[in-house]
Each structure stands twice: as structure tokens, then as C-alpha cells.
């Protein structure tokens, strides 16, 4: 077996809570991702999915346990990591083109070369006619495309995506899912895709990881043996899909119920 690109071994993250004491966001998390694997992580809202990604990205350090990327412990942001955040992170004062060119520029690529790479990616995500627009002139779906191009232009080996399409309407979301699969195919990147939409998780991933209610840990892992290339709209109507869905949902529903109970108790 090849070494996994991402490996979490008993990783735990505690945040200082309001007042004294701590709040455990994720506990004893064990998870591996193989090179080129597409892993979808599902779990109830607030369980610790974003926190998991921030551990892998090196933006947050684990309180205990190990976080390894390519076999190396994560101490700062590992090279080759791309991260699409849950909320918009495009720069409002830069045009679409300059937003996408930001990554190569930060990495020391010359201005002209960075712009030509950015241009190719702006075309690839279907924003060719909007290169000169500012983010506030775009729709939510278009801004997500900018963020996607901005991340992919760096050619990441590891792509972390935090509910990237959850704010989009249903049609746009299906479109973006197809687009993501198309762009991902052939890059060989490992993807960790966080979502709370189980259908999305199964339609996109090779593996679906179900997390428990807060504090999160891995509850179960399900392989998704659906053929690629997939058409997101079509694949979800196949009997295989429905069978996997039922199986995963059985595992997930109890956690969602628990999280809901918890929320009603706190709120």
C-alpha cells in the first residue's frame, strides 16, 4: 500500500471556551486519505468538520494526537494544500483575474506568467467573460467559481473543501458538482470534501466518512463503488446509489438526531 497523503491518528482539538475550561471540537479522530482519493465527510452541523480541515491545513494545531501530511507531522501549512473555505474568501478589491492570479503571485511567479495561468483557469471555470469584474458584481455561484479557480491554479495535491456549494441554489449546485468532478479528474489530487448533504457526498466521493455529533469523531466509513466518470444528476437515480444512501443514512440519522437534541437543550 502507498503511504496515505493525509493521516490523522487520535487527533483531538480543544478550544478555550467562554469563561474558564475548554470546549472539545473534535476528539480522537482517526482517518486516512490515499493519494488521489476523494473523501466526503458528513456529519451534523457544528460537530467539528471545519475544525478537522483546519487541522489538516495547518491553520490550527492539534491539542493532542498526530496529524500527518505525506507522512510528515503538520507544523505549518504543508505545501501543495488547497483550501476552499466555507464562507467567501475572495478579495473584494481585486478583479476576478487578479483574485485567481493571487496564489501564483504569492508563490513568486512573475506577474505576466501568473496572469496567463489565471486566465486559463478563469476560462476553465466558465468565467471567461467576467475576468475584469469585481466580486460584488458576481452572483454567489460565480464567486464560488472564482474561489475554485483561485485554489486550483496552485495545482494542489491535497484539496480541502468546506461545504463549498451549500449556499447555492439546487440547479447551480448540481452544475458546480459536475464541474468539480470534471476539473478534478486527471489532477490526481486527494480531496477532503466536507458537506452536510449526504446526496452530494455519495455522488462525488470514493469514500464517505460519517462523523458523530459534537465532539466529532469518525463513526463509520463507507466505500462508494460507483463508476467514474459520473454524471451527478444521473448517478443519484441509480439503484446502487440509493442502496448506499440508505446504508449511510442509517448511520448518520442517529447523529443528526443527537445533534438536534443537543441544540434544543442548549438553545
Amino acid at each position, binding site marked *: 500500500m502507498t503511504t496515505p497523503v493525509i493521516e490523522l491518528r487520535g487527533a483531538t482539538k480543544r478550544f478555550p471556551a467562554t469563561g474558564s475550561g475548554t470546549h472539545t471540537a473534535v476528539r480522537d479522530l482517526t482517518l486516512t486519505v490515499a493519494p488521489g482519493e476523494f473523501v466526503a465527510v458528513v456529519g451534523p452541523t457544528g460537530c467539528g468538520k471545519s475544525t478537522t480541515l483546519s487541522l489538516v*491545513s495547518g*491553520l490550527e494545531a492539534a491539542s493532542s494526537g498526530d496529524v500527518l501530511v505525506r507522512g510528515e507531522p503538520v507544523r505549518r*501549512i504543508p505545501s501543495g*494544500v*488547497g*483550501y476552499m*473555505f466555507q*464562507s*467567501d*474568501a475572495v*478579495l*473584494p*478589491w*481585486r478583479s476576478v483575474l487578479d483574485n485567481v492570479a*493571487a*496564489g501564483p503571485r*504569492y*508563490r513568486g511567479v512573475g506577474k505576466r506568467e501568473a496572469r496567463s495561468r489565471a486566465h486559463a483557469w478563469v476560462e476553465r471555470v466558465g468565467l471567461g467573460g467576467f475576468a475584469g469584474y*469585481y466580486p*460584488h458584481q458576481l452572483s454567489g455561484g460565480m464567486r464560488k467559481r472564482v474561489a475554485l479557480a*483561485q*485554489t486550483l491554479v*496552485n495545482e494542489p495535491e491535497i484539496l480541502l473543501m468546506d461545504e463549498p456549494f451549500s449556499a447555492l441554489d439546487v440547479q447551480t449546485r448540481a452544475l458546480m458538482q459536475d464541474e468539480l468532478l470534471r476539473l478534478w479528474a486527471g489532477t490526481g489530487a486527494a480531496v477532503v470534501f466536507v458537506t452536510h448533504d449526504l446526496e452530494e457526498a455519495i455522488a462525488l466521493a470514493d469514500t464517505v466518512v460519517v462523523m458523530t455529533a459534537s465532539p466529532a469523531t469518525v463513526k463509520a466509513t463507507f466505500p462508494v463503488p460507483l463508476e467514474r466518470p459520473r454524471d451527478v444528476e444521473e448517478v443519484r437515480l441509480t439503484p446502487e446509489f440509493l442502496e448506499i444512501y440508505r446504508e449511510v443514512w442509517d448511520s448518520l440519522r442517529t447523529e443528526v438526531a443527537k445533534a438536534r437534541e443537543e441544540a434544543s437543550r442548549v438553545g
Partner: protein
Amino acid sequence: MSADTLSTVDARPVEDGSALVRRRRRRRALVWAVRVAAVIVWLVSWQLAATYWIDPFYYSKPTAIAGRLVDWFTKGTAFGSIWTQIGVTLEEAVAGFVIGALAGVVLGIVLGRSRFLADVAAPFIKAANAVPRIVLASLFIIWFGLGMSSKIATAMVLVFFAVFFNAFQGAREVDRNLVDNARILGASRFALLRSIVVPSATSWIFASLHSAFGFALIGAVVGEFTGADKGLGLLINNAQGTFDAAGIYAGMIITTVLALAAEWLISTAEKRLLRWRPPSAGADAQI
């Protein structure tokens, strides 16, 4: 709509374009007509009052002020050409403004991004800010003499604090998400400062620059007031000494015109630099 209207609310929902443009133009014309009428009424009543009821020695009157302005611009002032006075005051204000704003921006951003330095500096900044700064004008005259540098120092101090607090706040309130995103994309500490922190703080900084030039003028004029051999402040001080109310008003008017011109320049620069902002959050929302 332009920045010189107070309210931009226009509640009519559907109307074809040209009718809308016409309505808007009519409204603008009306706004201006009322403004001009208000000024005329005010000037005429002042003139009449000063002619028939109140003592123009104390309150002067519009024609006397206009006469004084014409005098200054055609024959010059007691201290030489009016343009020299304007030039000196302007030079002091601009120099103080530039130095103070630069210092405020740099220090504000540095402290805004460094929790440790901010904690160390906080009590000193608070104490310095509590000093009645106009008093410093006297001190600066002792330090730097009657020339321009003492006025520049006064203007600088006034501008610095106005800009510093906004730059500090702006650097502090940078969206965490944007910073994380840039770090993931590969930004170094310096690149982060240049490409994320400074642009985010720019709206905050501009908000303070509008009032800051006014402060710079105040600093220069007060400095000249305290002791100088040239400048608008000296003219005004001299007018006060000779009980020349018209001269005070005339000096005031020139200073006001300078402040308005500077405000226009700053607004223009702001519009250019911040054109990425959605229109609703932009300059139109201001008075």
C-alpha cells in the same frame, strides 16, 4: 446620486428610464434652487440687519467682507500678497497632513497587527491622546521657532491621532477568512500585510482622512495664531487685534474654501482607490 445630497431614498418602484432621469434632474435643480435661495435670504437679511439694527463694528456685514476680500486679492494684505499667506498656510497644512497621515497609517497598522506591541503602547497612546493638543502649538513655537516647522508639527500631531485610531481599527478588523485564505495560497507575512491588511484598512483610513485635512488646517492656523510672521492665521489674529470683524470673516472664508477644495481632492482619490466597493456601501452613503 451625488455625495452632496443628504438622502438618496427614492421610493418609486417602476418607471421608465427617461422619466426617472428627468425626475431626478428636476429634483436636483430644486435642491440647488433652495440652497441658493437660502444663502441669498441669509446674506440679504444680514446686510439689512447690519445696516439698520445691529452694530456692523462687531458683526460686520456681507458687503464689507466682500470688499475686504477684493482688497486682499487686488492690493494685498498688511503682510504682503494674499497668495503668499495662502501658500504658507497651505504648505504647513499639507506637510503636516502628509507626515501625520503617513505616521498614523504606519503605526496604526503595525500596532493593529501586533497584539504585543499594541498592549505595550496602549497606555502611552491613551495618555498622549488625552493631552489637549492645541496647547502643544505653544510648546512647538518654543522648540521650533516662529517659522513653518512649528505649525507643521502642530498640524501633524492633530492629524496623526485622527488617522492612527482608524488605521489601527482597520488593521484589527481584517476578515480572518481572507487572511487564512491568503496564507493557504502561499502569502508571506509581508505579502499578507501588503495585499490583505492594507487594502482592508483603506476604507477605514479614508474615513479619517476626510476630517484629518480639516485638522491639519486648524493646526496650521492655530500655530500661526500663536506666533508667526506669515499665513492666514496671522491675518486673522491681526484682524482680531485691530477689531476688524470683516478681516476675521474674510480669513475664515478663505480657510473654508481651502478645506472644501482639499475635501474634494480626497473624495476623488477615495472614489478611484475604492472603486471595487459596491455602490451602496460607497461614498454615496455619506453626507
